[in-house]
């Protein structure tokens, strides 16, 4: 207790500053932890790719006999707008939207939009008959191991991603599409 007054004063100031730093650091650390918790909670299913994300690449066998491509790789379509549709022959709303897709396909293919309709968990026979029934010409990749549906975490079908020419997911639609809606989304992913 034999400090001089000056010494005591400077000691006090030092203490005060240390306390301020200590409290600021602790509060900052806790704030970061809270923000992290909130973000990771909202992102809980963060393997789901959402609007704004880059669409993850994949490669699958193509089984539409009306289309000459043998293997589809998503990244090959950079520079084009891509409608990435997940469907099955047994799913009524998928069946309902297919004719619209086919109707728009030739016109928009010229404008630089590709339709890729990934079939999930079907038999090749049913896919073939379905394609014949609706005279589909766009590529139909076949995901019989569930690899791409796990990658995109597909829940209800149909699910459709609209991907911009630079590979960004612009829209994700769960459920069937009407002709008007489909055309509207196509406008959003038209290449310049």
């Amino acid at each position, binding site marked *: 207790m034999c400090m001089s007054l000056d010494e005591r004063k400077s000691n006090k100031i030092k203490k005060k500053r240390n306390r301020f730093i200590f409290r600021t650091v602790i509060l900052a650390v806790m704030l970061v932890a809270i923000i992290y918790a909130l973000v990771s909670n909202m992102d809980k299913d963060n393997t789901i790719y959402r609007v704004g994300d880059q669409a993850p690449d994949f490669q699958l066998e193509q089984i539409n006999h009306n289309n000459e491509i043998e293997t589809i790789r998503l990244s090959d379509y950079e520079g084009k707008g891509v409608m990435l549709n997940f469907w099955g022959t047994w799913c009524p709303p998928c069946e309902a939207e297919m004719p619209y897709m086919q109707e728009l396909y030739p016109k928009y293919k010229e404008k630089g939009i590709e339709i890729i309709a990934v079939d999930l968990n079907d038999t090749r026979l049913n896919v073939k*008959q379905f394609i014949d029934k609706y005279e589909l010409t766009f590529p139909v990749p076949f995901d019989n191991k569930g690899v791409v549906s796990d990658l995109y975490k597909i829940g209800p079908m149909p699910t459709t991603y609209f991907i911009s020419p630079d590979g960004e997911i612009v829209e994700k639609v769960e459920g069937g599409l009407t002709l008007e809606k489909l055309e509207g989304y196509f406008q959003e992913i038209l290449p310049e």
Partner: protein
Amino acid sequence: MKNIKCDCGHVNPEGTVLCESCGKPIEGNQHIDGNDNKRLLNMRYDGTARRSQTYNKSIVDKIWSFFSSVKVGVWLIVIALVASAVGTIFPQEQYIPIDAVSRDPAVYYQDAYGILGQIYYQLGFHNLFSSWWFLILIALIGVSLVICSLDRFVPLYKALKKQKPQRHHSFLSRQRLFSETEEVTEEEKQKVINSLKAQRYKINEENGHVLAEKGRFSRWGPYVNHIGLIIILLAALLRSTPLFYTNEYLWVREGEQKVIPGTKSEYFIENKGFILDLYDENDDRFKAALEKQGTMVPSNFQTNAIVYKQSEDVVTGAEAQLEKVTEDEIRMNHPLEFEGYKIYQSGYQLNEVNQMTFTIQEIENEDGEPLAEFTIDVTDPKAEYELDNGFKVEINEFFPDFYLDSTGPKTETQFPRNPTFIFKLYPPNSDESETSFVGDVISAAEALGINTEAVELNPMGEVLGQFATNLDATGENEYKISIQDMDFHRVSGLSIRKDHSLPFFGVGALIFMIGVVQGMYWQHRRVWIRPTEKGLMLAAHTNKNWFGIKKEIENSIENTNIKMVDDQQELDE
């Protein structure tokens, strides 16, 4: 800020209620602990300055002092409790029953619970426990826990470290246990000290002033406990990241190879075979119970599985070399483990059809030898089959999971649970085809009274084929296609889990428990002796178990002239 110098010469931080050194109540600060008009001193935190109650200058200090308040902490906990309780009034979103009119929460709550349900939904209680505001509430409790603990632990630790044996007489006289004896000999005093020592008190003597203390570490119990709680909160934080926790479900057929969900297409699993063992109905031990149950009861179901890893880094979906990682039997309580993942046997589905064998016969001659036979792999049927004797069969339509509604034949799912075919049969040297509709074995089996969800149909394939639907739409067919045999397989339901956060929960819970034990089973007891002219003052304090400390004091003053301490709190009443 200004420090307060006590009469004893010790300089206390501002906000101190009782001098850290001698315990003398500091004038002007008695309101802080509510000592003003009381006879006894409030000994919470030993009257130290909880700093946050004093400095309030910068925004950081203001936030800090807000969270430092125990009152705030208690309110946060109360709010969280009430909210949690409200969250259990109606089911949470993920527990909306599967057979509900609509599983869309916007529809379900109003539909099932009326206006209250609507309010419940709109206030977000349907998704309470992962809603942002509930998480923030829990996080604020965590913050309050950290700051409250720091703000009390540090000054308390310092004060207990700095405490001197010599205490102000008003400190002693205002303790709950206190007595003053006019005349005491040095011998008697020594006797008390020795007796306290024998009762494992630590004695600290200075100029005739004595402090006997034991169990100080029990005071740290709550703080240790809080560290445990904070670790548990952090573990919950980690668990919300896929790096530490994933939970997925997968259906895989016998013989099928599928990607393991949640592994970023790195791992694949192959179902080598599914085993279902049943309790024997003829065994006397189980007979009565099984009859009561009325259905078969599995004694074991297991999947023999192989896990593969993709050996090269290729784009998802591309063919890659698979390396076998492990092979195991997955059973109840025996998960398959590989590289941090655990695969549990969670369910199964019987009676998916694998293969169907058909025969062709003349309708005129139904009992004769079949003219041709063909087998269809139902999981991958071909468009047409060229047969012996010049027959050709085309599959016109295939319904893997057949049902009939007003618009005609349909398939309910993509799974071959009730495969049904419309065939076009071309007899030898003919361009004209006959149409046959064959299948719907499940309806046939159910018509026979078989519960197809519980009973294995595989041994009955041949028999069931005879009961299958077989339609001749035109009534002009010359040939009949009938089911000769069926081969069923089973689908295994597996859940895939990865949880690296459990050890953190374990450590947190252990530390929590240590803190509880530390604070509960030990007590911090202190006895002060202050000499007066001829006699002495005796005072004591404990944080709990006053009976125990009285007992010890009684023991130590035995055979002396020293007066037993009075319980001044009791006197008050």
